[in-house]
């Protein structure tokens, strides 16, 4: 096994090539992911978080394309590899759990048959090996192995989502990429799935990149949090710190958008306006039109990511020539 980070994303840019002009959905995103680390990526719809995730998994289809940057997984740059080269890695070292298990599982094949396909993609396992391993992973996610013979429609939404996770763990990969795997579930199922993902991660030591729009969901599970706004990293830091002392006004806005179930009932404002259209990106700071503390400079100067005691933040308040107004 190699040392060093399991995943290194460097200056990654993704464009959607459209007739009018190219739209940059992911703009210069860099981060590293250590072994066994849980990184949460949060942002509103259209902020580029799913595009980023697809770019990491090399699953982008035209009109999207990686315009620049690299995705280094276990020391190999995945950008530019052929499908044949990628298939050696997929499922075995890196797997993806999609948002909607209803659509991600094949409706006309039993769960067991789909597991078999995956296992046969890497090597020539015997029937016994297939049966043993399939039953094993289903048990890991808390599903009775009799469901190997079930078809997706015979499972509940939560079970389908768990079956997807089981499938992703067939080879015990080093990295599991998850795109809002819990968004179709109700709170109770959501909570129990998150706890289960965390337990599996602790037991098997894989790293997770978890994309969601619901910050509160991962607050207790992720190690670090990457807040995306309009295709860029707005803030990147340890989860606890981002929650306890958010630096970017957008992060603060996101946190204040959650009504709490405990504590006093206070009026909340949410974030005014709507996420920007990436084809008409505002000048200066991309958030300034919705920002409660923006001034004239924010409309002109593009902020860079700066290190603020270990947390990276993209806001002019922290670039040195400005006072730190909270």
């Amino acid at each position, binding site marked *: 096994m190699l040392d060093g980070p399991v995943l290194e994303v460097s200056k990654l840019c993704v464009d959607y090539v459209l007739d009018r002009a190219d739209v940059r959905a992911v703009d210069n995103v860099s981060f590293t992911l250590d072994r066994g680390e849980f990184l949460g990526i949060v942002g*509103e719809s259209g902020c580029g978080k799913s595009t980023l995730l697809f770019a990491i998994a090399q699953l982008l289809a035209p009109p999207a394309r990686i315009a620049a940057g690299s995705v280094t997984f276990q020391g190999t740059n995945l950008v530019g590899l052929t499908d044949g080269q990628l298939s050696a890695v997929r499922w075995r070292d890196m797997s993806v759990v999609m948002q909607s298990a209803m659509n991600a599982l094949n409706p006309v094949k039993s769960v067991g048959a789909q597991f078999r396909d995956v296992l046969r993609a890497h090597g020539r396992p015997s029937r016994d090996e297939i049966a043993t391993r399939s039953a094993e992973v289903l048990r890991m996610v808390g599903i009775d192995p009799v469901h190997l013979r079930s078809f997706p429609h015979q499972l509940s939404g939560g079970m389908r989502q768990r079956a997807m996770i089981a499938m992703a763990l067939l080879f015990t990969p080093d990295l599991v990429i998850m795109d809002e795997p819990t968004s179709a*579930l109700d*709170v109770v199922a959501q909570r129990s799935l998150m*706890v289960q993902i965390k337990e599996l991660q602790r037991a098997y030591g894989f790293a997770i990149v978890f994309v969601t729009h619901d*910050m509160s969901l991962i*607050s*207790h599970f992720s190690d670090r949090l990457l807040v995306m706004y309009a295709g860029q990293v707005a803030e990147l830091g340890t989860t606890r710190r981002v929650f306890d002392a958010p630096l970017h006004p957008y992060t603060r806005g996101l946190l204040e958008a959650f*009504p709490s*179930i405990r504590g006093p009932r206070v009026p909340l404002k949410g974030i005014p306006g709507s*996420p920007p259209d990436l084809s008409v990106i505002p000048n200066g700071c991309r958030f300034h039109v919705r920002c409660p503390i923006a001034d004239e400079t924010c409309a002109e100067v593009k902020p860079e990511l700066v290190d603020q005691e270990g947390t990276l933040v993209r806001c002019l308040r922290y670039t040195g020539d400005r006072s730190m107004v909270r």
Partner: protein
Amino acid sequence: MTAPLLRAEHLTRHFKIGGALSGRTLHAVDDVSFSIGEREIVALAGESGSGKSTIARLLARVYQPTSGQVYFSQGAQDPGTPLSAMRSRRARLRYSGEVPMVFQDPFASINPVFRVSHGLLRSLKLHRRELSARERQAEAARLFEVVGLGAGLLERYPHELSGGQRQRVGFAQALAGRAKLILADEPVSMLDVSIRIGLLNLMATLRDTMGVSILYITHDIASARYVADRLIVMYAGQIAESGPIEEVLADPRHPYTQLLVSAVPDPRAPLAVGAETDRGEPPKVIDPGPGCRFRFRCPIAIDVCGTTTPQLARTGAHGAGEHGAGEPGASEHRASEHRASEHRASEHGAGDPGAGREVACHVAQSGAEVKAFS
């Protein structure tokens, strides 16, 4: 005694499934009674498949109830007309204008080929016959202002609006028929977290300034707490617990409510992984036998839970025993008083802790303290 705006009594809706001869029946809603007062936001919470949306459709007359009745009142003195008695086109139209629906998916619920004013103007033409074309335009513009859109957006197409704006269009359409009760089925669950609050604030404004009642169907308890006055928790087609929302959430008495509350992620709370969690699967609602439907997931179930279906009944603060269950009319009366009682806590709530709280759980009704999930 003032009548509530809407009152459902023993509402039941079954669906036959698996072909005519299979004889299997899905009990989507089973013997549910509740009421909604004027100027009241009632949150109807529960997991998917618990019958929340079926209730909305029963109230909207999309489905006919298998049994039971819904009464809609035209004022404090009106005891209410049963929906089944509204047979004329005029009566039905009036009801559908006064009790409109707002749907979950703002991308699918507005016709993409027309301007957003289209549905609103049609609704005005249908429900407000007295208005001229010019007055309809003015009213449409006024309604857009009410929901915070600005009249300038009337001539836009749906694709030009964001999800939050589209959902506001949905509320404007709902208001067009002089709405008294809006049935909002998961109105914010498809929206980004950052813009949900705006819609929730709009719902509160509609209640406070226009006196509209809202049935807010959701599985998001935190957002329910933010806007609602009262909470009804559904489980497997039945009401598990109901009462003033602050009291229910501060001291949930049904094990399922406790599970629901404990599952809500709270970023402000300290890390609590490893807390007791539940891996239960959705309950059986196809041909359920007698007994509590939550018992398979319930850590504190006792023998009687397997034999007798618990009835929704009042419990006092920590088991003052059950009473009020057998008095028809008592619960409706209390319900319409909830909102008022919140503001008049000194004279109402304080002297009678647990007023208006009902729970369908044998253990809670026996007076024991329920601690199933925390």
